[in-house]
């Protein structure tokens, strides 16, 4: 009885997932929604997929979290460095000399 129930459940879940695009396409849609407006059909498909798929739901939340933290704080840690964080690389002495010459030759 129990095995019958699990196999029916399995078939039902499989049937549900056949109605929506697979996870690899859904993740692509999540990503693309940041860069363009999805079509109505795509938005609908993605919504349905996220309704039944816990993994992609998590994925979507994580991608949104990443996006948010990069937009909010990325400039501090990635593009620019605040005074406390040591710079990852410095100009070579040669390059520094060359730059100084370039600048002073045009003063």
């Amino acid at each position, binding site marked *: 009885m129990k095995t019958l129930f699990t196999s029916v459940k399995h078939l039902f879940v*499989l049937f549900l*997932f056949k109605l929506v*695009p*697979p*996870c*690899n*396409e859904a*993740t*692509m849609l999540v*990503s*693309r929604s*940041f*860069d*363009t407006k999805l079509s109505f059909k795509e938005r609908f498909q993605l919504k349905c997929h996220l309704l039944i798929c816990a*993994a*992609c739901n*998590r*994925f979507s*939340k*994580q*991608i949104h*979290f*990443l*996006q948010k*933290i*990069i*937009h909010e*704080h*990325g*400039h501090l*840690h*990635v*593009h*620019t*460095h605040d005074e406390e964080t040591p*710079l*990852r*690389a*410095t*100009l*070579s002495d040669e*390059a*520094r000399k*060359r*730059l*100084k010459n*370039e*600048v*002073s030759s*045009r*003063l």
Partner: protein
Amino acid sequence: MRVSGTTTQIPSSMNTPAIPSVVPQLSDPSGWVDLYGDYLYNYALMRLKDAPMAEDAVQETFLAALKARQTFAGRSSEKTWMVGILKHKIIDQFRKNKRESTYTEESLPFEREGLFLEDGEWAGHWKPQCKPTAWGDTPLTTIEQQEFWKVFQHCFDKLPDRLASVFSLRELEEMESADICKVLEITETNLWVVLHRARMHLRRCLEVKWLSSATPANK
């Protein structure tokens, strides 16, 4: 509050003869290389990932700044002003460099790993061992954030150059997709694929390297 206080005082001071110090002044250009050289170089290197190109961008920034000295309005700090110029120079470098970009690139770790099932009735769905793990809902503490950026930097460095440049233009400079396509001369479809790959990589890399070790309590 303080802002409104100062604005009300401005009219009275405007009647008095102009104070010379109000005119925005740039520091002596001969000191620029020491003051901002390393900072700008870092900024450029992060994006261009190529030392000679980054040096070029910094040099052109200084030269452009010299030329535009008179137009400096003092609305922002000198440093911010220079970063603004550098951003344009970096985009110029990308534009010059685009001919070297190829579309056949080495695969990323997450792609070699294969996150999705390839066949069977569940083809296209997450492999059970690759399903995204719970990251926890609490906002990051300061220490967690520091750790996060360390790992982020590590993961970001692993991105191939072209993916990194597209990603930084899109997510760090927050440029519009259409503008990036113009600068790099790629199609929009290509841009989406590239950004998707970069995001997939960063997410997976962070999950494996940072969250799995740093926050076991969230599991």
